[in-house]
Structure formats: C-alpha cells, structure tokens
C-alpha cells in the first residue's frame, strides 16, 4: 500500500497538466470549415448561425471568433440550444461529446437541409454526422462525411477533403 501511495504522490507532484488548448483549436477549425464549404441559396443571406447543443468551452472561443470575423458578408451569430427540440435553423451545429447521444435526434430533425452537423466523438461520422473531430495517433484530426454533405446541397472545396479523413 505504501508503494501505491508513494506512486500517487509522485504523480501529483510531477503534474504539469496541459491547458485545454484543444477547445480553442476546435473553434478555429470550425471557423475554418466555413471557408471550404459553399452553402446553397437560402443559406447565403442573413446571419451565419453556428449553433451549440449543450454546454462546452468551445462556445466561448467561438464567440471571440464571431467578434473578429465574418463568413463572407454574413455576421457570425452563436446560438445556444439545450435540447434537440429547441434547435432552430443553423449553418453549423456543434454537438459536444456530452451530447453525442442526441445525434440521431438532430439528424432526424435536419434531414437533408443544408445544416452541417459537427460532432466530437469517435465513430459518429458513420452515424450521420457531417464532420467529426477525432484524435488519430495522438493528433487532432477530423472526419468528413462527403456523401452526407453533398447530399445536403453544399459544395466542398477539395482542399478540405485532403486535410481531413474522408468517410463516404
């Protein structure tokens, strides 16, 4: 037991936990996705809405970006939703991993409308998500469901497909 406690103590002492930079980078990734995607008419006027389902640190990061950047001529608006029922029209909807179980409800709700669903859990690109953050070999990456996105009437810059992992 003493050895175990010693190990535990050692572990705490040598702790230098990394700050959660990943939220910042994910927010930057999300903003960057807008540069590689072309929404159909009907989604190219008014505000550019990025929806967030549930609570996540990414929301604060996106709000900072929204103050600094636009998508084309559109102002970026961050909308927060608590439940799938309350979700309204968005250009992008981010579902954090804590809400992954709501993906089916969202895909059902959006159907073929041009709202891009971004998730953050292994395997969700195969379950209807359009873009899914994954960690591959210790590196932050994203899966992109090309068929889904094209089916929603968006155009994808091939450069985005080269950067991500394409799921057909």
């Amino acid at each position, binding site marked *: 037991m003493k050895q175990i406690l010693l190990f*535990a103590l050692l572990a705490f002492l040598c702790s230098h936990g*990394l700050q959660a930079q990943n939220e910042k980078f994910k927010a930057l990734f999300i903003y960057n996705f807008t540069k590689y995607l072309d929404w159909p008419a009907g989604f190219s006027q008014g505000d550019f809405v990025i929806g967030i389902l549930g609570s996540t640190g990414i929301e604060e990061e996106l709000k900072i970006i929204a103050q600094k950047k636009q998508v084309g001529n559109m102002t970026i608006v961050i909308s927060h939703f608590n439940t799938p029922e309350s979700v309204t029209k968005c250009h992008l909807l981010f579902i954090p991993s804590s809400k992954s179980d709501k993906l089916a409800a969202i895909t059902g709700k959006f159907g073929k409308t041009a709202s891009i669903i971004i998730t953050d859990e292994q395997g969700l690109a195969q379950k209807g998500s359009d873009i899914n953050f994954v960690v591959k070999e210790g590196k932050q990456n994203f899966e992109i469901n090309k068929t889904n996105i094209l089916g929603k009437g968006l155009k994808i810059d091939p450069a985005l497909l080269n950067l991500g992992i394409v799921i057909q």
Partner: protein
Amino acid sequence: MKTSKYILLLFIGISLFMQIKPAFSQVDYTKMSKEQVLQMTYDELLALPLGDLMALADIVGVSADELLEMILNIEVSTASKKKESVFNSPLSTTVIPAEMIEQSGATTLEEVLRLVPGMIVRQKTNGNFDVHIRGFDNVPPENFTHFSENMISLVMVDGIPVYNNVSGGTFWETIPVSMAQIDRVEVVRGPSSALYGPNAASGVINIITKGASDKKINLVADAKSGNETNGITNLYVARKITDKFTVSLAGKYDKRNRFTDEYYSFVKGDYMKVEDSLIGLTGVDYYNGINEQSLDQKVARDLWATNLNLLYQQAPDIKFSLTGTMQDSKIQTAFFENLATPYSTRTSTTNSVNFKADVKGLSANVSYQFGRQNLSEGMIRPVIEYDMSNLMANLEYEIVIKDKLSIRPGFNYQQCAYDDSEYEKEYRLEKNDPGINGLFHGKKESSLMAGSLKLDYAPTEALRFIAALRADKYEYIDNTKPAYQLVASYKINENHMVRANYSQANRGAFVGNVHANFKNQILINEIVGVIPDADYAMFKAYLSSNSATASLVDLLPAVVPVRANYNQYYIGSDINKKDYELTTLNTAELGYRGKLAKNLQIDVEAFHTIAKDFDALVPTGKNMDTVFYTLGELTGISSLTDEVPLPKLINIEDTLNFENIKIKGTQIGVSATVDYVASKKLTFRFFGTWQQTRLKDHITIEGEKKDIDHKNTPTFYGGFNILYSPVKEFYMNVGSYFYTEQTYNHYWLISQNADANAIQKKNAQDIIGSKMIVNAKFSYMFEHQNTVYVQFANLLFDDKREFAFTDPIKTTFLLGITFRL
C-alpha cells in the same frame, strides 16, 4: 523629391514585406515550439489556413483532459446495451481498449482482466488462469476442484456467450479470438442476467473485436517468445473490399511450458514426479499405465485459433456480419480432478458460425458452435470426452419514443446437445472393460427459451432510469427463473455522476448439472495391497497355538493379497431436477464517478450481495463391506470353509450426489479506480477492491453447521498501471496486480495407509500467500508503426503458487515484434 518619396515608400514597403514574410508566409509551423504556438494571438491564428492550424494543434498536443476522455471514457455498449461514454455508464463498468491491452503486455484475455477492478485473476499453470468477478469462488468450500471454477459470470465475444454448457464455466483457451483483433474488453460488475441472460450473476465480460476501419488494409502481426514460452503469435488483417464490405481474418498460436514437471498428489499431500503423483487412492490407475507418456508433463498450453469475418455495412444503422471460427487447444491445469491429482489435460477442437444483423432498431444473431472436447485427456475412467453442439438465437428490437424512452423487447433460444456414446464405446473396446461409463452416458440435450424487456427512460438530461426483466424457461426445471435489474443514474453536472443499482441474476442450468449420471467402476477385483506383516504374523501365531491347526501354518502363502471393488456413483440432478434451484445473486450497489480535475478521474462503487442456492457434489455415503478369506483358500484345502479374519475383497460403493446446498453467502465490498493523467507522456491507474464474504449455514466435513468467513476470496485485491512515453517512439509500461492471503479448502478421500478400510474424509487446506505481481514492458517503434519490445512478468521473482495445489508461477521474459499496416 517625388522620386525620393517613392524610393522611400518602396524601401519601407520592402522592409515591411521582409518583416512580414518570415512571420506569416514562410514559417514552417511544424518547427515551432509549443511555447511559441501558445503565445500566438487569436488574430494570428485566424489568419492561418486550416492546414497550418492543424500543424499547430499537433504541436500543442492533445490536452490532458482530452487524453482522459480518450483513455478512460471511451465508448461502451455492454453496460446498458446502448453505446455511451464509460463516464455515463449507469453500471459499474470498466473498458480496457486495445492500446492499453498492448501496452500492458497481456498475452491472454485473462491477463487483460488483471487491469480491471473487481477481478480476481490467479494463474494456475503458465498462461492458464482462474478468473472471478468479486469472488464467491469455491462456494461451498471443501468442494471438488472444478466447482471452484467461475460458473456465475457471463463471458461473451461481440455479445455472443462463450460459456461451456457442461458447467457454465468459461474454457478461456477455447475462445477463438486473437489478441491482435481485440478492439476493447468491457467488464460490467454485478448481476446483469436481465440484460444478458444466464450466468451474468456476478457480472459480464464482453470481448469486442475490431469492426470496419477507415483504412483499406489494416494489419497487425505480432510474434513473441521467451523462457518457458515456445512462441505466441497473433495476427489480424482486415481488407476493405468496397466502402461497405470488409473482410477480416485473425489467428493465434500459443505454446507454453509448465514451470515444473511435478504434479500435486492427493495421496501423498505433496508435489511429486509423475510416477508417484498419478497413482490414486487405493492404487487406482487412471491413466492406462503410469509412465512418462501418461501425461505430457511439460505442456501448459498448446493451441491455435482462427476466424474469418465478412462485414457488410450498408448504412450506419444497417449492417450484417458473418463469422466462422475454428480452434484447437490443449491445456494442462487444475480442473477435472480424480483421486490421484487435481491436474487434468483439457483438449478441445471446436468451430462456430455466427451471423449478426443490425437493421435500424432490430438486432438479431444466430450462433452455432460444435466440436469435440475431452476434459481430462488420457484419463480412462470416467469417459469425459464428448461431441457437442450449441445453437443460440437472439432477437431484440429497440423502439425509441421521443428520444427519452427506449423500449427493448427480446427473445432468446438456446439448444445444446452432448453425446459421449461413441467415446464410451471406444474406451470400452480399448480397455476390454464394458463397465466404463461416460459422463453423460449417451446423448443428452437441454434447451432454454427466454423473453426479456428493457426500459430505458431519461426524463431529463441528467436523470436516467433503466428497468430490465427477463424470464428463462429451462427444459428440465419446473419454474421459470426471473431476473431483474433496476438502475438509476443522476449526472449532477458534466463532472459528477452517481448511480444506484439493484438486481437479481442467476446462473444457468447446464448439461453437467441436469444430465450427468454415471457409475464409475474405478476398481474391479484389483489387488490393492497385502495383509500387513503384523496382522499376518498374529494370525499365524493363532494357528500355531492350536494343535489342530498348527500344521496348516506351513501351507500358508508368504504374502496374502487384498483385492477391492470400488464403484463411484455420480448422481446428477436427473432424479430431482424439478426442484433444482439455480445459484442466484441479489446485489444492491451505489456508485460515484467524478472528474475531480481536468486530469483526474475517480470511480467508486460499494456493493452488498446475497447469494444462495449453490450446488456441489456431495459425498452422501460410502458403503463398504468386506469378504474374508476362508482357511481353505489360504491353505489350498477346499474342505476348510471357515472364514478367517483376513480381508480378501473389499467392496466400496461411494456415492456423490449433485445437490443444491442451502448455504447463504453475504458479501459487502468497495471498489475504487483512480485515473490520473499527469501529462501526455505519463498516465497512472490505481484500483483496488476490499470485500468480506460470510457464509451462513455451512456444513463442515465433520457435519457441523456453522457460519464462517469465506476466505477463499482475498480480502483486498487490485493493481496499478503506469505508462510513460517520453517520445512517441518509445514507451515503458509498469503494471502490477496484487491480492492478500486466501485459504482454499478442499475435500477428498484420504487413506492414512494402503488399507482401504482406513479411507476417510479429510478437509485439506492450501493457504495461498499474498502476492504482488509486477510486470513491465519496454517498446520501441522503429519504423512506421512497427515495434520491437521486451516484456517481463513477475519481476519481483515471487515464485509462490497463485491457486491451490497448482504450479509455482515463475518470472518470465518475452521478446517480441509487431508489424502494422
């Protein structure tokens, strides 16, 4: 002036360009330090294209809390039959992902379970283990060795049960899964029969294999060898033929030696060479002549297995899978004992075909397993070699109502057949002995039909209730056996979750329980000894003292043999099967899971279990009568018919009844797991379980009824795992598994001398001392993802045996290489 102004502007412009250029245009972002990246402003980052941002994200690395999510809170599907993060699992759940399995150096599935809290895993012989979830092992104590096997946990491969239908235990060596194809191992502690069916009484172990991959070709080939290990190889290759169709092939080979060539002898009470240890009580020869060929003394395990899977995934929620498996295995361990030794060599050649379909909410699978098994190779009596088949079909449908309520009705059917008639015939011919019986004595079948219903209701984001009910109707038992599970979980916030669970679950009724009935003719008029010198001398003196008989002394033989008939009757529950009660566990459990810091997670569970209706082979009587010599038989004068007090033939009829034991077990305990991600390079896991088990109304060998502490299960057991990876090419993993002292009680017949009259019952104890097993693995990635490694087991050089009357477990090292595509 104008010209000079333009020249000045041009100069400033060039200067600015020169300054700006290194900052934004030609920076090689892959060469920036982490500190430099962290100092970049939002504006600078927003100016970068996505590709450069990805490079910077790599430099910053995955954060500690994200690592925690990656390492710990991966997806689990066993706990509530719904895919979810382990953190949200409403049951006491642990998932060991493939990476952790590889890093730990585990060479068998059982060793993987040494990374899981609540698991008692003891090595019997090299590579062969006894595995229990939370204990209740060897209840009631003083039972036969094979009753100490875990028959109250459900082991599955991709949701399909793999228990043997003889006793409900798991023959781990027959699981046809390669270590290279495992995606993760999920363990749910606590009764879960309502969700998974019979035997999930103390918990469920679900081995999940790799499914479809993004890669065109996914290859893992691993080979290792070391001391007392001829070779262990594991292979997995998957080829994505089209976007929807994947073919995968996996295989394994594993050959290891025992750490000793001695066997424990029940008669001598010690470890002996084969010629001394395999002679049973009263001299019975179980092995067709005791010699070095009787058993392959050195082999601990020698096996191979392969499986082929065809996976067609039409859509995320529509997939079909067809798997064929084959395996051939031989292991030597303490399992099917006889009156000589607890060791036996188990051989199995089995195959299976499994079909699974998931279409929207519908989930169906049909599995057919078949093959041959011998529970004690080389042993003649009784015949425990048989052909077997097992058909299982399962159908479930999930209906989701408004995203809050899911209803999952299910139907399950199982039918198994065991047939030893051919083997019985073969052994009778070989030994020219029509009295040899098989365990089943013909073809025996058993079936089970079950219905289940699971309700999963989440009225709010934080609150969740699960209620599950299952009813099993066994062919040979009157009553329908109910199992139920009531679960509630409340997620206080993203970082804290509490759970409560009350459940009842039972083990199944297996063929060995309901059908095994046989007479085992161990001795047929065989010489088991001679009249002891002292007795014979006294008899001669008696004859000499009488003038009428004094002359007969010269006619007496020098030695007088004593013969014996020894019949052992195994009375299974065919006789009283209708009353047969299945071992049932009721557990109340409270749990808490919390992310106490970004990089620190804790999982604690407290449990209280009441277990009843165990079963055992109870020695219900030993009838013995003795036929004495006549004076004529000793002297050759047939007219002298008077009996003399010298035993000629001893008839022993020993009866073992398979019976329910009205013993009640009560267990309380606490398990805790602490995961700490110190950094991306250094992670820790500590876990431990404290438990206490009381047995009420235990009847001792002496026939005394009393309440006792059940000491077969260690009071404290657990482990730790430390992974250090200073650079991505290298890692060092140090893991430990430890347990406190245990006392194993065993009953057997023992003779103090060679005289069969002196046979008596004895409770023999083996105290297994506490042990800390430390393992380490050092791995170096030399190219692409290919690695070479060296790993050590039992680094503290503690050779103590880990299970009663089995082998000492020595230190081993393995050198290995892994190739990946």
